[in-house]
């Protein structure tokens, strides 16, 4: 019995040392293994300087944080300015070098919105979502003129470029847009070029048949797809706007931003001349 008491206490010590402590240590250490996160970026607005800047902040955050394994881009946008659309598109391409980006269309991914969608790894839409409208629109700048009170050093210093050049520039941008779609969708794109470039907008079910999207589905399915692509499970979903500290956007419904005159009057179309990858249903008073 005397031998057994030290032996029992020795056995308990060994048990503690060999099993319990390492297990507790392992459990504690395992907490340092981060739960995978699928980040969500919501775009529920047109694409213009503010929204593009917000999106880019979120994309950069996702890029720089390893726990974020994939990003789901939830789109409800008619598109927007060309430059802002291209900016976001390029940031998405950079992010995709390291993490998959899945897009899902809620109400609409038109024009510039579709430009972004085409640059993602996989695209979902609802059967009735509006998808497509590939192309560029432009509101011509004023015709060059000479003003009595304003002097400039060249004929286009005030006006930027000839109106005709402005029109032709759209064609160049259209080439970029189509190429982005063509490269992004690759062999999944079934509609021929001349059909794509008609600029038509399609319901999700038709967009699927044309190869403009990959699947009809919801945001949940988009998360599942993102998890599958990245081989993760038991993931956490986070709004990247919150993680990146991007201020919550105002709750104004569309139209927002540049769809507003200086007097604060909302318009259904951009109130400044310019080039847009934007879907604008024809509206009363539209120039």
């Amino acid at each position: 019995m005397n031998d057994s008491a030290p032996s029992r206490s020795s056995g308990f010590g060994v048990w503690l040392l060999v099993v319990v402590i390492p297990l507790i240590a392992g459990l504690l250490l395992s907490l340092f293994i981060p739960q995978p996160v699928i980040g969500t970026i919501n775009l529920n607005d047109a694409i213009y300087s503010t929204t593009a800047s917000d999106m880019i902040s979120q994309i950069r955050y996702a890029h720089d944080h390893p726990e974020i394994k994939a990003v789901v881009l939830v789109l409800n946008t008619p598109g927007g300015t060309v430059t802002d659309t291209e900016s976001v598109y390029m940031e998405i391409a950079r992010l995709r070098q390291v993490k998959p980006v899945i897009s899902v269309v809620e109400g609409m991914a038109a024009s510039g919105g579709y430009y972004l969608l085409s640059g993602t790894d996989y695209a979902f839409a609802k059967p009735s979502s509006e998808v497509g409208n590939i192309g560029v629109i432009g509101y011509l700048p004023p015709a060059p003129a000479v003003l009595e009170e304003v002097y400039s050093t060249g004929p286009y210093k005030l006006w930027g470029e000839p109106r005709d050049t402005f029109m032709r520039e759209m064609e160049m941008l259209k080439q970029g847009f189509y190429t982005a779609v063509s490269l992004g969708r690759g062999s999944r794109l079934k509609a021929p070029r001349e059909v794509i470039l008609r600029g038509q907008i399609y319901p999700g079910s038709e967009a699927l048949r044309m190869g403009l999207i990959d699947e009809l589905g919801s945001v949940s399915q988009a998360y599942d797809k993102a998890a599958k692509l990245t081989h993760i499970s038991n993931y956490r979903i986070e709004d990247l706007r919150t993680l990146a500290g991007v201020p919550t956007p105002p709750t104004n419904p569309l139209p927002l931003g540049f769809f507003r005159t200086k007097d604060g009057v909302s318009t259904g179309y951009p109130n400044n001349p310019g080039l847009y990858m934007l879907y604008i249903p024809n509206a009363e008073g539209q120039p």
Partner: protein
Amino acid sequence: MKPIRIIIAMVMLLVPLAARTLWFYQGTYQRTGSIPTPDFASFTIPQPDLSTPAPDQPTNAASAAVKPDVLFDLSHGNAYFLSEVETLTKAIDKLGAGVIVDEDSRSLFEHLKYVASLVEIAPTNPFSSNEIREITAFVKRGGTLLVLTDPTRNFGGATFGTSSNSNMSSTEVTNLLLAPFGISFNDDYVYNLVNNDGNFRNVSFEQITSSPVTENLSKIVLYSAHSILTKQTALVEGDANTFSSLTDKGSNLVVAASAQENKVSALGDMTFLTLPYNQVADNQNLILNIAKFLANGAPEQTLRSFPYLFSRPITILTPADKPIDPVMVSAMSEAQSSLEALGYTLDFASKLEDGHDLLVASSLPLEDALKPLVAPFKLTFTKEPAPTPTPAAGSSTGLPTPEAGGFNPNTETMINYVSVPGLGKFETDGLGLLLFAPSEKSNTLIMLAGSVSGIKDLAGMVSSGSLNGCIIQGQVAVCKLSSGSGGGFTGGG
């Protein structure tokens, strides 16, 4: 510590780590290949296929001393500014023709009496049936009609400073105008995603049928154009990739057509006339062709064009060997000032000069010197006794009364008559005759009246510009004049 215990400890340490790892991660994400993005630097702004500027054309003003005029209508809510089509108006001017603008539809009839051509660009106010009839008649007697529409100018004449008082589109308005010629515009625009000039709606056309408007053209570009339905001559057609916006289909869509032996040309675009689009492909030559087409309009001259009956300087024939009545001087003066106000140059001479038109005025009876000029009209001048009086109804005596007319006193009175083929026999007293003989070398207008004062009345018609009160048959007008005792139609003929 025994090695086995160390191993167990390590396992115990790693199990939670492995479990958590496997709980979350079943593999790793590996991107294969790079993300393809467009080579944005490789995209360039498509440049227009600029044409060689058309050479300056020598004017042909020498071919006609009075230049032909081209009428640009701005009276039907036309959705354009004249300044926008300066490329065309300048080309017309270089050809020695004049440009006239009609801003009041009431004067359209007056202008059509003398212009060579009518240009209708994007009218948005409907033409009256009278206007359509007059324009159709104008074309049928040799005037040329150019009709341009434009999908970007289908409405909104008011935007262009012209009043628009209808809700009709330009295509609807022009289709009514062109219906007599078998041409109609579709309310669409054509587009081509393959063969275009910088934009799908700027369509290049290379299927061109030769005509006065399209000669020497191999490629033109139209900037938003309506397609045309016609069984007449299709001048410009699109290729297999040119579609109509109405159907998103199309094959050989027509965008320019002609009718009435090329006297009517219709084109579904007007933007090609504006800078800088006039400089693309063969558009400059197209504009020059259109200018020639318009300047060469040559409506047949008839008395209905009165008083615009002359194409050259006018010689007013004066008798060399007899005194001129002072009333005749007054009549000639009125005719001179009226014709000069219309832009004609005049002189007086006793015989016709080469390259001049002739104006002759004479009272009846006809002088021998004028008989050769009047002979082609086959007029017959007679002098007959006044009609025998007949009893007036209700007269108790059965004798004629002066009020009943045909009263003949005791002495027999002779009355002068003129018989006009196809019209009848007229008493010359109080009667005026206008006889018009156009020819390639010289136009001749003969004014005859029963008295010198009647000549003055005829000269007054020149200043009023109207043949109201006249019967017109071919190139002869028989007019009731205010001077003289009466004159009247006696029937027959």
